[in-house]
């Protein structure tokens, strides 16, 4: 309490809020690169043709889609552009990969996935189990969020249609050993689908030489627009469409192509390839600086997930005894955007399923904050956050009834 007996406000005495916001929530969505916008605008205003039309408007649009398909194929390391199916984003890619495979293999009734997948996969698998009678094995991860490929092998059955795992976890950034899991799936003749949404743009990809059959990516996670994505479908993989009624995407996804967004995705893939080294050197350095700065300045906190084997841009830190929403609200007032695994930020009353699956106690799940950086972030931004967050945490800890002596009622 201050000298006049008045309690200080939670934001009192913090440094002035930076004029432009600091965006550390790039695993949620990313700013669209200016080069991508420049590519998209003329395709909305001037060259607005339908690729299926028999005139030069259509031909121009068709050329743009073909160029983008080549760019996405190069970016993913696909053997040929025809292996790329444009979608509306990551969720559609995951749904098409998984359900399209099940449609094509009607006699197989079993799937293998993990407890820490993105809701696009987790929710779909629960739905398949509940309403469509599929048998689903949800594999567990260890305390660091790692998946043992041996568990995948042990779960396989003669009627297993598909294994679906993520390459990188959206909440913790922890990586799964796609190569080892893919080899197991291939040895058993099981289709292997990978949710690559968080990995794309942050890790080198060479799908032709990885034992992966299906690989979903999302445009807006790598500086392209929302509402566009792609599914890699290895040549020879059986897949039935979900959206029917048109010949587009070689009959695998009907509907007039989202030309501007698709062309923008192509440009974003070029930029991602060019920026990969920066992502793994400079963004990693900034992430480490942020993480180490916060862990050093704030007592009673810990970083979650395997520190050695994770995305270069992501850190997930739990602050004991306080709840994530308050931290986010105060960070937002201080000009910083991040996200939390707390229950209160989801509206579901359920804290992060990923951290719970890792066996983290509630005191660590409710107070978890994810910072996810991009190539547009700077060291000055990192230093501002390491300066301001310790004071925010300190003030919220003055309000909480919990502490080292008393962890819960």
């Amino acid at each position, binding site marked *: 309490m201050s000298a006049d007996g008045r309690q200080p406000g*939670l934001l009192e005495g913090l440094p002035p809020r930076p004029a432009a916001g600091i965006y550390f929530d790039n695993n949620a969505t990313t700013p669209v690169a200016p080069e991508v916008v420049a590519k998209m605008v003329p395709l909305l205003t001037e060259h607005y043709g339908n690729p299926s039309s028999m005139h030069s408007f259509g031909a121009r649009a068709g050329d743009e889609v073909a160029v983008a398909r080549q760019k996405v194929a190069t970016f993913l390391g696909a053997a040929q552009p025809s292996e790329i199916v444009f979608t509306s984003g990551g969720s559609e890619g995951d749904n098409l990969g998984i359900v399209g495979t099940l449609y094509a293999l009607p006699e197989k009734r079993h799937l293998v996935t993990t407890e820490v997948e993105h809701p696009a996969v987790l929710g779909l698998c629960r739905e398949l189990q509940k309403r469509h009678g599929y048998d689903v094995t949800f594999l567990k991860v260890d305390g660091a969020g790692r998946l043992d490929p041996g568990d995948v092998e042990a779960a396989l059955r003669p009627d297993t249609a598909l294994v679906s795992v993520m390459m990188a976890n959206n909440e913790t950034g922890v990586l799964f050993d796609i190569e080892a899991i893919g080899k197991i799936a291939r040895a058993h003749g099981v289709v292997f689908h990978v949710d690559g949404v968080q990995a794309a743009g942050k890790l080198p990809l060479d799908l032709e030489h990885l034992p992966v059959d299906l690989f979903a990516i999302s445009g807006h996670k790598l500086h392209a627009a929302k509402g566009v994505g792609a599914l890699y479908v290895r040549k020879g993989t059986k897949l039935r469409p979900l959206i029917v009624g048109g010949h587009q995407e070689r009959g695998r996804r009907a509907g007039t192509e989202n030309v501007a967004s698709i062309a923008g995705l192509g440009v974003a893939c070029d930029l991602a390839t060019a920026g990969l080294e920066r992502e793994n050197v400079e963004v990693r350095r900034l992430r480490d600086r942020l993480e180490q700065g916060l862990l050093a300045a704030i007592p009673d906190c810990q970083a979650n997930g395997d520190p050695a084997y994770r995305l270069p841009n992501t850190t997930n830190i739990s602050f004991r005894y306080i*709840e994530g*929403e*308050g931290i986010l609200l105060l960070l937002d007032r201080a000009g910083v955007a991040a996200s939390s695994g*707390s229950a209160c930020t989801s509206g579901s009353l359920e804290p992060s399923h990923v951290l719970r699956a890792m066996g983290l106690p509630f005191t660590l799940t409710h107070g978890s904050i994810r910072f996810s950086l991009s190539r547009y972030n700077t060291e000055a931004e990192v230093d501002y956050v390491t300066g301001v967050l310790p004071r925010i945490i300190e003030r919220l800890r003055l309000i909480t*009834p919990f502490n080292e002596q008393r962890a*819960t*009622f």
Partner: protein
Amino acid sequence: MWNYSDKVMDHFLNPRNVGEVENADGVGEVGSMACGDALRLTFRLGEDGRIADAKFKTFGCGSAIASSSMLTEMIRGKTLEEASRVTNEDIANELDGLPREKMHCSVMGREALEAAMLDYYKRQGKEVPCHLLAGTSLLCHCFQVTKETVRDAIERHGLETIEEVTHFTKAGGGCESCHHEITDLLRECQERRASGVAPAVPAGAPLIELAPLAATVATGPAHAPADAAIVARITELLATEIAPALRADGGDIEFVRYADLRVHVRLTGSCAACRSSSVTISGLVEPRLREFVDPRLVVVEVGRR
């Protein structure tokens, strides 16, 4: 992003009365770490019998902190009798409203107030006003089951799963939001048993008697002959879409009567005992019927049996 009122943000950013009252006359603790929010409320009475000081410490989201802050402001200067009339709606109204998903924050405030006043009466050795007895250390709000009841059942019957706890006490059978707490209690009791602190499960221990669930006797549909078509569509939608969704949570719904665009229904099963039944009606039943039958329909929940 939640749409918090300016008042909620003000009480979050500038919380009033943070801390603990020294030599408190009443202390109330509700919630837990597992729940995601918890509140410790302390108060002291003045010589005039009015609450002279009230302070809070809260673990929880912005609206939980704001609700706690507002609660302390509202009860200061009140007699215990006056304070006992402060409802969770009053707290939410004083904050210019809370998002629907956050109403439980105001409920937590009300519960802490009840717990603190109960603590006061116990300390004084006074008789507890009966309206305070209901809501203390509630674990399952849907079925009004206290933590003590659940712990007692676990210890006496050696329960090991949430399902067993639900079977024995009904706790956790509704909205399931207390499953974390039940899990914690199960773990705690297991540890106590393992370490020999708690006695082994006695053989042939008596079962806790359950209050019977609301009866689900069907009543014949009552409606004018001219409304037969619309009633048929309503009952079909109830049977094919709405009831299955409720049954997933152990509840059910039955059609009672229809007249002048008003659909009377009765919630049964776990829904019948649930505090959130109005949310079930306004959030699920009414929108579905309006979408598929008639946008002017009003759904009315009739009394439980």
